[in-house]
């Protein structure tokens, strides 16, 4: 009666109530085809995508990451349109490769746009970025960065501004309204060409997702493109190579030629916006991206339209003349600049000082140095600014309302009696990565705590409840490298966890090659789920089918073998027992060197997206389909919840005990279950309890199914207690 419990090989129809149908990009693709005078409606990032096509880009590239993944994702599905226009699209394997793509614009009059999540993506791209900015470009080069800052951000809180400053790349931070975003995108290419400088445009999370409308224009086919090829490469010009002595000349060009040209362009094209106000003695200079929060803050204080505003849709370079003109004759100017350090405020101080303009500048003294400028933070800052700089304006009414709202919140805290349980992100139902961490938990029961070097990706959720596994995260694909100096001082081997996304992004070289080269004695677990799942299941080199020809590009195990990894196991993740055994072996084997476990299991989100329509079609066609799911016998469960602590599956929930004599809630598998079998596996591997059962529901049963079932039911009915 023993049999192998490989659940996922069976087709299943998850009947889930809580599932949001996956977004298809059909609507978005249609929006990209809008022509002159038609009304575009959609999100900010899609508007940027449309704007680059209207600008005649010849090539687009990028690496996925919230909140800008959408740009490339939508274009991937618009291959027809790209083919018509001749636009080349690359789904790059990291941001460095995306940044290097812009190298095409150094020698050729081609407009190009690449995108990634900042600050982390910009860090990865930094080398190529410097080498791009130094020689400069002749074709407009635009980098759209998702400024992942504030609420909802998933990365280190740093500013892209720093890169713009140090590499002399211009930085746009457009006001979050679609017409402004679109205009800035189009102007960015012109600015880039007018100044031979790449331009970055940063969009915060809310701006990427903000809905709005603008009047579209026709898309423009680029003059040089895949459809209109060049006969010959560019004439050799050492001046376009970022090597000395060219680099010395580049540095001078940046400050003597390109920056002044940019300043002239910004003024001539009115990129920064001036909003007049009654109080000519006051002023506010604000980053374009947070203008809406500011305007609403002023409305809240009933001073909307009173104070003149200079909106910086371009935050680097600043135009000293423009700043000086704005400040001249004013008693006080408030600089609203989000994040640290306060680059803009410092520049404004220097600019005014050099011109002997004695306007008092307020900024990070009334607003916080660090953290997102939310409505509340900005309101506090504005109140403080007006109190210090213009106490003739009576703000007692608004101040009272604001204080009342805060008092109300304190009252809410009192009623609720303390912080609410957090809802951190976690592994999806049926995620193939969860079993690996269940196995690590079980391993730790045997050998004690282990140093775990975590990485970027879904698997980083293991650092949260209920697993709480992981000692550090050093960046994407860095987990193995990050154990470099830990492993040699540990009695037990270290475990580095890395996704296949991270492996191709950086882990292969920074991690595996370096560890092999240095004879590191460590354990590496590679989560091979087939996609960069955390960013929306984009394809990577080991994905089962490439978007172009359906062929897998590179195999991880084969790559590792070629690199000389000798201890290599590929394990199906759902098999917790085998995973545990393999981990145990990796931790204890006498074999020195790198030990790699490729934990294989397809991303369940991607899998469900694929199999669900197939199963629905099979059911409609009357084919036999077995739906598998798990359940808990509520009479057998005693409510300890070990199973939840070892799994955390969202479909493994609790419900009130049906037993009149017990009070602790019992475990329950809800209808989100996709039948991955982990709960049963964990119950087995951890020897938990006999509550779990697997149910196979036969849909469109055959006559034989029914016959057997009827026979069995009869006998079982007669035998039952």
């Amino acid at each position, binding site marked *: 009666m023993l049999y192998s419990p490989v659940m996922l090989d069976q087709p299943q129809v998850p009947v889930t109530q809580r599932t949001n149908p996956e977004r298809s990009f059909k609507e978005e693709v249609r929006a990209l085809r809008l022509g002159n005078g038609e009304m575009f409606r959609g999100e900010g990032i899609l508007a940027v995508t449309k704007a680059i096509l209207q600008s005649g880009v010849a090539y687009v590239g990028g690496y996925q990451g919230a909140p800008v993944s959408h740009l490339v994702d939508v274009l991937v599905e618009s291959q027809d349109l790209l083919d018509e226009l001749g636009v080349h699209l690359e789904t790059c394997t990291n941001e460095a490769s995306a940044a290097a793509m812009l190298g095409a614009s150094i020698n050729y009059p081609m407009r190009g746009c690449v995108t990634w999540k900042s600050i982390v993506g910009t860090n990865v791209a930094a080398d190529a970025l410097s080498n791009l900015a130094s020689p400069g470009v002749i074709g407009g080069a635009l980098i759209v960065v998702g400024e992942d800052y504030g609420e909802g951000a998933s990365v280190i809180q740093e500013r892209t501004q720093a890169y713009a400053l140090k590499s002399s790349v211009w930085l746009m931070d457009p006001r979050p309204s679609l017409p402004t975003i679109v205009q800035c995108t189009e102007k960015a290419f012109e600015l880039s060409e007018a100044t031979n400088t790449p331009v970055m445009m940063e969009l915060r999370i809310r701006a990427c997702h903000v*809905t709005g409308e603008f009047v579209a224009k026709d898309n423009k086919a680029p003059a040089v493109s895949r459809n209109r090829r060049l006969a010959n490469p560019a004439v050799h010009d050492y001046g376009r190579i970022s090597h000395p002595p060219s680099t010395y000349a580049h540095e001078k060009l940046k400050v003597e030629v390109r920056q002044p040209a940019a300043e002239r362009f910004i003024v001539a094209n009115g990129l920064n916006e001036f909003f007049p106000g009654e109080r000519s003695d006051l002023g506010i200079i604000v980053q374009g991206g947070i203008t809406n929060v500011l305007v609403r803050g002023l409305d809240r204080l009933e001073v909307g339209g009173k104070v003149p505003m200079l909106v910086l849709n371009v935050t680097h370079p600043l135009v000293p003349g423009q700043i000086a003109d704005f400040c001249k004759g004013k008693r006080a100017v408030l600089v609203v600049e989000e994040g640290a350090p306060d680059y803009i405020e410092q520049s404004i101080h220097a600019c005014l000082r050099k011109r002997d303009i004695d306007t008092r500048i307020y900024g990070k003294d009334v607003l916080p140095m660090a953290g997102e400028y939310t409505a509340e933070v900005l309101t506090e800052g504005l109140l403080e600014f007006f109190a210090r700089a213009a106490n003739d304006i009576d703000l007692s009414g608004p101040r009272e309302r604001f204080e009342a709202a805060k008092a109300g919140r304190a009252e809410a805290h009192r009623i609720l009696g303390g912080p609410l349980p957090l*809802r951190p992100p976690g592994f999806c139902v049926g995620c193939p990565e969860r079993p690996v961490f269940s196995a690590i938990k079980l391993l730790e029961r045997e050998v004690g705590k282990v140093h775990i070097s975590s990485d970027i990706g879904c698997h980083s959720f293991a650092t949260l409840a209920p697993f709480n596994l992981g000692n550090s995260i050093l960046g994407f694909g860095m987990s193995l490298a990050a154990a470099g100096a830990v492993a040699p001082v540990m009695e037990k081997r270290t475990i580095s966890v890395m996704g296949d996304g991270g492996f191709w992004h950086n882990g292969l070289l920074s991690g595996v090659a370096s560890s092999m080269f240095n004879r590191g004695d460590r354990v590496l677990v590679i989560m091979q789920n087939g996609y960069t799942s955390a960013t929306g299941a984009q394809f990577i080199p080991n994905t089962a089918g490439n978007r172009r020809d359906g062929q897998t590009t590179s195999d991880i195990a084969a790559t590792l073998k070629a690199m000389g990894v000798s201890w290599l196991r590929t394990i199906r993740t759902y098999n917790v027992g085998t995973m545990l055994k393999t981990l145990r072996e990796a931790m204890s084997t006498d074999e020195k060197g790198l030990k790699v476990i490729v934990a294989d299991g397809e991303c369940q989100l991607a899998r469900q997206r694929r199999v669900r329509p197939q199963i629905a079609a099979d059911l409609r066609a009357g084919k036999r389909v077995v739906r598998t799911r798990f359940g808990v016998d509520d009479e057998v469960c005693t*409510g300890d919840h070990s199973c939840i*602590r070892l799994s955390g599956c969202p479909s493994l929930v609790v419900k009130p005990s049906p037993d009149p004599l017990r009070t602790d809630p019992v475990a329950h598998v809800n209808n989100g279950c996709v039948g991955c079998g982990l709960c049963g596996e964990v119950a087995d591997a951890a020897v938990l309890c006999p509550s779990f059962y*697997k149910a196979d529901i036969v849909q469109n049963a055959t006559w034989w199914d029914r016959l057997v079932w009827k026979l069995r039911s009869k006998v079982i009915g007669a035998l039952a207690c």
Partner: protein
Amino acid sequence: MKPITILVGALGGDGGGVLCDWIVAAAHSQGLDVQATQIPGVAQRTGATTYYLEVVPSRGSHGTVLALNPAIGEVDVALATELLEAGRMIFNGFVTPDRTTLIASTHRVLAISERSAMGDGSFDVGRLLRAVKERSQAQILFDMDQAAEESGGVINAVLLGALAGSGRLPIPDAAFETAIREGGKAVDTNLAAFAFGRGHARGELEQAVREHRKRQTAAQGVEDLIARARRSFPAASLDVVEEGIRRLAAYQDRRYAALFLDRLAGIDAAIVREVARHLAVRMSYEDVIRVAQAKTSRERLERVRAEVRAKPHEPVGITEHFKPGNEEIAAMLPPKLARWLLAQPKFHFPMHLRSTTIWGFARLRLLAGLRWWRPYTWRYVEEQAQIEAWLGQIAAAQALSLDLAREIAEAARLIKGYGDTHKRGLGNYRRITDEIIAPALAGRMPARQAADAVANARVAALADPEGDALGRTLTAVAAAAGITTMRHAAE
């Protein structure tokens, strides 16, 4: 023109993004200026997500600057797909009694910290409901999860219906329905869910409260025992005592149920309900026979079929996950043999038993039929001895303090589960017995203090599986008791 501000709190997978799309499309169709944005979180299906919308309530007022962030005290409509998320918007100060209409589902989806607690870790719903009532201007509350289920749709459509029904937006129902139709996804079920939500919001639909029925054990031939219980125990304890009788008769036999009543005889009326509850659970301890009984009961197959939503004509195959080892086998052996087996190296073997096949079911049924043998097993002897010791402590404590006796009874809550879980619970229980109960009964700790200490230790034992919290609590108790003893000595 001031915009109407809408804040949405949802869980990943609730379809908050689609909900926003519908609202935006409906507002557009009325020529209203509208803006939506979101903090969607990552691609994963857990975690809290928020969406924020502003709708300018009159036509032709384009050009109003719309905000991307909600502000405290400035939200007109707050929508939540789950009660804790409604609580979170209140906690963050966005929901206020001067202007916010709160439209929320009353069902709970427990957060991971609530689910993974070793006992009942769920947040106090009473507090949430009080905050909802006191901190919002108007409320539309019902179980939208259930409404979604009843209508066959998804919760976001129910919420949209409730929003339409609230009348807070100058958008007619038909515009929302058109938005759903033009969305093109699961149109019929979404329209049905929308209608449900609207009906509830307008008070046109009554929702049956979702019951969590407690299941009584079926047992025959115990009428005289029940009559005896009714004569002997206070009315307030009878539901538990009677269930205990039925439970134990089904678990073992009539005599065992009678033993249950005998054991309760000396218990003070004030605590008999609590003691009876735990006693019945302890006497019906989990062994292979009981599991087999539960898995072969007549109602079980129907329960599973309902739970996995099998249609009447669909065959269902059930596979049980067992992993018996020496402990489980020893529990079935006579004491001597069991002790020998337990002294052997630990082993376990996974057994995946298909209980919907005739042979699989028959094997389980055979096991269930072994209950006559139970009194001869090592486990039975062990359990009875522990129960007697526990009852002895309760009896002794009754003389000192009813609170202490009650807490000793309650401490039995720690003993539950199977295998390692059971062992860990029993270990914790024994630590509490050794370090608090025994000293208290021996007069080395004041009874009142001991009662508190036992209660604290019980809570601590349920705080973490490693027993860290319990260790700290017991150390603190010992320290406090030491101080008391010294003080006594000084006096």
